[in-house]
């Protein structure tokens, strides 16, 4: 008889007023008892709607059944069949709009906590599991991956399992992409990313950091070096600004810069050299998950007042409900229906405030969301000394501008078929480089699909 509780077993968390002063993980994870209890909520539907909602088709009911039976290592093996980064997905996937969004338990009550269970299983394995990774027998074919983010790492892992000799070229000094420069430690500990990357290396994947493809070697040169296919997962790294007055003042950051300084460069830790502003009051402009991350980092860096400034209402705010909830608990102030007009500076060129205008919602626009309209004469100044622009990113042009035959759309996103094939023979792409800024799991799904396509492509040529 399944556990018919309408609610998920609640996730243990650090107290909001404690955690907003440290970078330790917010959610501390299920115990074995909690996991088993939650696992018994699964009804094991025949048609598995949850699996259909997962971009990498994790065998969800099967792994949950093993959790319920206390076979945690077995559950891990089940997940690993299709997902190479379970500890990451369990933490950062938007389950509410994917697997859990399709769960029938969600029709009346809360869906099964699939994400929490996945995380539990991955963490249990890291703590107790016996890793016996063997390097698969090589098939003698070489594939190059550009970018060690979620799509590239997934593609690399899947190809390595098939026996390909995979080299991943990464521009930064460490592998992980957005998992290490963007998502903060308190949502995704970097030691977990390092462990997942370590597993790939044990499988024979070679990771070459400090290699900016397009500058040091071009895609064509990779082919000359003997790679038979190239996967481009270079992400959407180029930050957008609003182009309003004052954006060049000292104390205005892109969310990318602010987060990179803190996460990748460890500006939050004693003994690291990378500097960052000591802020008293911070305005984060934007309402996505990245904005939530930036705001919550700013709070942890010691800012007294941290505002999310978003031009629409809570209903349209794109961040995950869980992130918004966590941010609110931690004392982030939501200034909704407000839009920045200009940033004000003092005589030294430092930010002294941000002028905003109040907005109201009009008719729906092309995106289907109600268009925000400025309320005339409602301008006011938000007293802040730091502004973080978090209004989106676009794909980096470094590769497409140095590779002939690789076409992009007007937003700079690489044009690719559903299987990842680009307009250039032998070149595949996936993740944000194709879709524009999206989620970790969609990028992983794209990396997975491309790995299959690359395998077919190389087989067809040999």
């Amino acid at each position: 008889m399944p556990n018919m509780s309408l609610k998920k077993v609640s996730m243990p968390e650090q107290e909001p007023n404690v955690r907003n002063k440290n970078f330790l993980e917010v959610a501390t994870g299920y115990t074995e008892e909690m996991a088993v209890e939650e696992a018994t909520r699964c009804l094991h539907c025949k048609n598995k709607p949850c699996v259909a909602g997962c971009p990498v088709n994790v065998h969800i009911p099967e792994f949950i059944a093993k959790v319920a039976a206390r076979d945690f290592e077995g559950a891990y093996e089940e997940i690993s069949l299709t997902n190479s980064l379970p500890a990451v997905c369990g933490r950062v996937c938007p389950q509410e709009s994917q697997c859990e969004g399709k769960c029938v338990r969600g029709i009346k009550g809360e869906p099964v906590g699939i994400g929490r269970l996945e995380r539990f299983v991955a963490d249990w394995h890291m703590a107790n599991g016996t890793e016996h990774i063997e390097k698969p027998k090589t098939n003698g074919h070489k594939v190059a991956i550009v970018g060690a983010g979620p799509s590239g790492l997934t593609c690399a892992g899947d190809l390595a399992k098939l026996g390909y000799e995979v080299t991943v070229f990464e521009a930064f000094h460490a592998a992980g992409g957005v998992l290490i420069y963007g998502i903060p430690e308190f949502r995704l500990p970097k030691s977990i990313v390092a462990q997942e990357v370590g597993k790939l290396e044990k499988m024979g994947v070679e990771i070459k950091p400090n290699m900016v493809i397009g500058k040091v070697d071009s895609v064509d040169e990779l082919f000359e070096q003997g790679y038979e296919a190239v996967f481009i997962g270079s992400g959407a790294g180029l930050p957008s600004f609003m182009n309003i007055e004052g954006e060049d003042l000292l104390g205005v950051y892109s969310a990318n810069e602010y987060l990179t300084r803190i996460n990748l460069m460890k500006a939050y830790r004693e003994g690291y050299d990378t500097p960052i502003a000591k802020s008293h009051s911070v305005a984060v402009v934007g309402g996505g998950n990245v904005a939530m991350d930036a705001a919550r980092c700013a709070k942890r860096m010691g800012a007294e007042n941290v505002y999310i400034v978003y031009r629409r209402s809570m209903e349209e705010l794109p961040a995950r409900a869980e992130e918004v909830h966590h941010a609110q608990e931690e004392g982030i102030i939501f200034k909704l229906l407000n839009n920045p007009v200009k940033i004000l500076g003092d005589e030294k060129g430092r930010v002294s405030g941000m002028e905003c205008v109040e907005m109201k919602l009009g008719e729906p626009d092309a995106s289907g969301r109600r268009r925000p309209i400025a309320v005339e004469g409602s301008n006011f100044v938000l007293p802040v000394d730091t502004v973080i622009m978090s209004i989106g990113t676009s794909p980096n042009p470094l590769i497409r501008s140095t590779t002939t035959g690789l076409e992009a759309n007007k937003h700079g996103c690489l044009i690719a078929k559903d299987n990842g094939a680009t307009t250039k023979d032998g070149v595949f792409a996936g993740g944000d480089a194709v879709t524009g800024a999206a989620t970790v799991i969609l990028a992983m799904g794209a990396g997975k699909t491309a790995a299959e396509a690359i395998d077919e492509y190389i087989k067809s040529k040999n």
Partner: protein
Amino acid sequence: MYKIVTKRCLNDSVTLMEIEAPHIARKAKAGQFIIFRVDEKGERIPLTIADYDREKGTVTIIFQIVGASTKLLNTLEEGDSILDFVGPLGVATHIDPNAKRVCVIGGGVGNAIAYPQAKALHNAGIQVDMIAGFRSKDIVILEDEMGAVSDHLYIMTDDGSYGEKGLVTNKLQQLIDAGNKYDEVIAIGPIIMMKFVAATTKPYGIKTLVSLNPIMVDGTGMCGGCRVKVGGQTKFACVDGPDFDGHEVDFDELMKRNTFYRERETTDKEHVCRLTGGKRNA
């Protein structure tokens, strides 16, 4: 890890290092830069490439010991290694094949970067006048090297202790007044120097190229920290530059932006660990 093959002190505060990085040496061109990180706790610091040797597989950097990271780098010796070294980044300087005569101006450690520019022009058969400015005699660097690649080398010092007394702009004005015609002026040095060189050439409409050195993190267009206003538009120095039209750059804004972390740097600088002599504890 990237090995330091050669280390040479050019003066008390300027050091030259040849770093083993064959893949970068193979591609590097004048005007491009690298980013280094000394160790796990280090910052990512951009430096313009001073020279490269494709056969030896080395890239030469010349740096002034000004902040924590350059100080740390300077504690390393030949045979030691740097953790990270990435490049070549940025757009290479475009050499106008139709140019007949170019004036290359360097200021202080900026001469280390002005020199390869002069060399590239000289090798392309273009006549080069070089004006090299220094504070005083004791910090003059690369005099022989610069002399070898220029038709005229004018050394200027602020205090007159070597060469001629005066600023690089005094000499430039003098050369222009004497009827010398330049197709282009390339200026590399302190922002204030580049600003005044651009102001000097503007009335004559001489194309003036400057090489900027803003604060940056990744060097690939990702952080936007290096944004500069050029012709009223925001550009990222790391991918759109580092070379820009000197008549279009907002130097005052760049000067302000580059001071952002200076207060912290100043307080950090006061402390030199007596146990390690500035080296990081292992």
